[in-house]
């Protein structure tokens, strides 16, 4: 496959994606003409591009699709969901045809062709033929008669002494909006010959208030030197023929023709005359002469009388339909070249493993930097200290930019779901609307790649089992249209992706019953709502019975959970019966290096991710309540806390003054009581071995500058332990004490 074809395939796939997106939006807003244009443009571009690389089967197919879109644009046919469905089918088919091209086959195989034909015949039958007879006839437009200039008789008076073509152009207001830029045509024109002189006529531009910046007001008078014949020059503008006024005067045209031209143009005759003189089409004497003649004879007759047999026949070019491929091809080719250049300037493709290697190295650099820092501060040399602190800052910046290299927006992943939701909801006979928020949220590329499958699972599940059928919804007093939302946002050092629906929610009792049946929980055990909801992630929970027996979901939720945990993330489910379910996927922002906060308990050091630290305060004995309760009063708020010494069973007496690090995880605050606060620390995360996989509360390890190992605390788990303890002690029937906050 040559380079041009590769570019065509890549760009056409992008165009198809844009077209698909626009079609989906169009279905929701059928009246939006911008959207119709947004659908039309890609189809058009693809057809043109296919023409350039002479891929006829794509041209043929796209042509009919484009006809339908053109009718849509002109308001001849209306947008309906049937039409959108067929057009989406056309999108898919073009995608398949592109694959054929990519595979290097000369023609699509039988099946594919049959598929294409059936799509086309549907389009033809239901939309194209509906309003107008035989639109297929226009598929092969008539070429205008080619007028050769060779046999022009350059003799006698009345002929203007010039060897150049004169081209007079006035563009319609709509050309820019339709994605056609006059520059492109003029540049293409210059490939046929030489633009000797061009004069830009902006006279049509109205005053500033009325001027529409998206409309085109320009006209051009061009002196053109070329050996091409008239048809070829005309063909340059075929593509905008409907939207521009074009006059072409061949070399050595009669003066009267110029005069007729002056009159045909919208601008003031005198001004135009000057322009013609300026560009050298006429001399001043010829102009004066011509204008005199014109005043002497009434203009209608003037042309005929002054020139008995017009040597070139009709000079004012009639609007004729010519095959647009030629020009279109030129435009696209040009565009491809310039866009490719621009894109190359902005983007560099590099292999992902090179990037990984860089990030590994940066990680080592951070560790080495920390060690240097430590040595410098021990040495107590102020010069050295200064130098290392500068070095440190630079290392930090390098680390941040290295990590930034891997960040991509999640929007593209989200947008794929528009089509999924549309197709699945059709399949299920439900009316479901997808809303997307936070598409600009960035996260690590490798995470984005791996999150697609779990998301797909959750989205399909939500549509299949979460959202009820329209009848059920109406019976429940909800809007018949189900809502599904995808939302991404940053929250204290992690990224959260929510998949929420407004369906029936999880049925607590059924889940509990099922779990007891499966032996996942003991009958009679007291479980919080949250714990019950989390049962759906248990392996084996779903595999046995048909999911539809449950109100909620179940298929493969354990797989979803495992995939997400593989990314060091977690998934939570919040459900409100009758109102819907929300799955929150929480993923770490970066995979390798974080800003940490170093704390000490006894002789060991621990790292808390700095993003999660809200504040630090001294633990005051009187602010805590009596020994058995682990919460304190933080400015009137109940703050559950956990002692690292208790958690890790560190022996010995705590120091007199303990500190509390207030952390926030998953929207909940908790305190971690430590002995000492040691300050910020750049932390390179080293995973713990398989052996420690089941440890709760530890997220990994890191190496300090001194060479010691410090454990990285899994703040979320710790916060849950702290909060969970409180909840359990409250929920337990034995506990009758209501929590009381002791006042300071």
């Amino acid at each position: 496959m040559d380079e041009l074809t590769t570019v065509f395939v890549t760009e056409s796939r992008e165009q198809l994606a844009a077209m698909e997106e626009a079609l989906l939006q169009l279905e929701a807003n059928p009246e939006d003409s911008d959207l119709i244009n947004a659908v039309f443009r890609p189809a058009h571009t693809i057809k043109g591009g296919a023409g350039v690389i002479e891929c006829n089967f794509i041209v043929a197919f796209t042509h009919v699709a484009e006809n339908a879109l053109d009718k849509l644009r002109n308001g001849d046919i209306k947008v309906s969901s049937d039409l959108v469905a067929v057009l989406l089918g056309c999108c898919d088919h073009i995608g398949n045809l592109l694959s054929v091209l990519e595979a290097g086959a000369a023609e699509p195989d039988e099946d594919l062709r049959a598929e294409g034909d059936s799509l086309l015949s549907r389009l033809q039958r239901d939309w194209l033929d509906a309003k107008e007879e035989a639109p297929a006839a226009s598929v092969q437009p008539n070429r205008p008669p080619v007028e050769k200039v060779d046999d022009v008789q350059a003799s006698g008076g009345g002929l203007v002494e010039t060897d150049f073509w004169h081209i007079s152009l006035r563009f319609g207001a709509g050309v820019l909006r339709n994605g056609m830029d006059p520059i492109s045509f003029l540049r293409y024109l210059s490939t046929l010959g030489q633009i000797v002189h061009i004069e830009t006529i902006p006279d049509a531009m109205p005053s500033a208030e009325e001027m529409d910046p998206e409309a085109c007001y320009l006209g051009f008078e061009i002196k053109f030197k070329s050996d091409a014949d008239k048809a070829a020059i005309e063909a340059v503008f075929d593509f905008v023929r409907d939207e521009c006024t074009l006059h072409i005067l061949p070399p050595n045209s009669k003066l009267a023709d110029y005069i007729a031209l002056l009159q045909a143009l919208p601008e003031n005759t005198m001004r135009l005359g000057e322009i013609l003189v300026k560009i050298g089409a006429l001399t001043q004497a010829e102009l004066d002469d011509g204008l005199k003649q014109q005043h002497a004879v009434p203009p209608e007759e003037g042309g005929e009388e002054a020139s008995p047999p017009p040597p070139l026949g009709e000079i004012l070019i009639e609007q004729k339909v010519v095959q647009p491929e030629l020009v279109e091809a030129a435009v696209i080719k040009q565009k491809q070249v310039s866009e490719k250049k621009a894109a190359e300037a902005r983007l560099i493709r590099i292999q992902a493993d090179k990037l990984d290697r860089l990030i590994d190295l940066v990680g080592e650099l951070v560790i080495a930097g920390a060690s240097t820092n430590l040595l410098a501060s021990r040495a107590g040399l102020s010069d050295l200290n200064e130098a290392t602190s500068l070095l440190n800052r630079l290392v930090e910046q390098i680390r941040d930019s290295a990590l930034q290299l891997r960040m991509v927006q999640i929007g593209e992943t989200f947008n794929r779901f528009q089509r999924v939701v549309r197709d699945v909801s059709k399949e299920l006979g439900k009316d479901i609307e997808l809303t997307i928020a936070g598409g600009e949220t960035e996260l690590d590329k490798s995470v984005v790649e791996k999150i697609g499958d779990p998301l797909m699972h959750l989205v399909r599940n939500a549509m299949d089992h979460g959202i009820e059928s329209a009848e059920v919804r109406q019976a429940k007093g909800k809007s018949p249209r189900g809502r599904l939302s995808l939302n991404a946002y940053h929250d204290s050092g992690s990224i959260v992706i929510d998949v929420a629906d407004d369906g029936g929610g999880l049925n607590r009792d059924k889940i509990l019953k099922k779990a007891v049946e499966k032996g996942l929980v003991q009958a009679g055990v007291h479980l919080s709502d949250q714990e019950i909801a989390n049962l759906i992630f248990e392996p084996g929970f779903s595999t046995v019975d048909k999911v539809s027996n449950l109100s909620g979901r179940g298929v493969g939720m354990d797989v979803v959970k495992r995939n997400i945990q593989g990314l060091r993330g977690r998934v939570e489910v919040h459900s409100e019966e009758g109102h819907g379910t929300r799955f929150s996927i929480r993923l770490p922002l970066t995979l390798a290096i974080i800003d940490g906060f170093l704390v000490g308990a006894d002789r060991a050091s621990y790292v808390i991710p700095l993003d999660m630290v809200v504040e630090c305060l001294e633990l005051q004995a009187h602010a805590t309540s009596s020994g058995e309760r682990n919460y304190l009063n933080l400015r009137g708020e109940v703050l559950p806390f956990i002692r690292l010494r208790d958690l890790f069973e560190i022996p010995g007496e705590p120091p007199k003054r303990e500190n509390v690090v207030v952390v926030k995880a998953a929207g909940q605050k908790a305190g971690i009581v430590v002995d000492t606060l040691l300050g910020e620390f750049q932390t390179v995360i080293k995973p713990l071995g398989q052996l420690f996989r089941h440890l709760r509360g530890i997220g990994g390890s890191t190496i300090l500058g001194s060479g010691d190992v410090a454990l990285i605390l899994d703040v979320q788990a710790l916060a849950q332990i702290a909060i969970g303890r409180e909840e359990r002690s409250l929920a337990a029937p034995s506990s009758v004490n209501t929590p009381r906050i002791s006042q300071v």
Partner: protein
Amino acid sequence: MSTGTHRVTILDDLTIYNALTQKAAFMEALGQCRDLEIDLSHVGEVDTAGFQLLLLTKREAALQNKTARIVAHSPAVRELLDFFNMAAFFGDPLVIPAREQG
């Protein structure tokens, strides 16, 4: 604020995609001063819509007895003005059109 020199620096492409906002920006800038300097040195791409805006600004300035000057051209802008043979109209210091006559 109706006197003095004001400079606008265009950082985005001068294309139809930005034309609406840029028109407003040009007109506002022109309304605030007598002498508008337009810095186009950062413009990566310019199309007919962008070109029209420059024309409009220039013409509007002349109507209001003000001046609007392009003080720096990016290669793309220079190329386009040259192509349209409009460098003289703008009359701003610029590399002389390289187009050969005849």
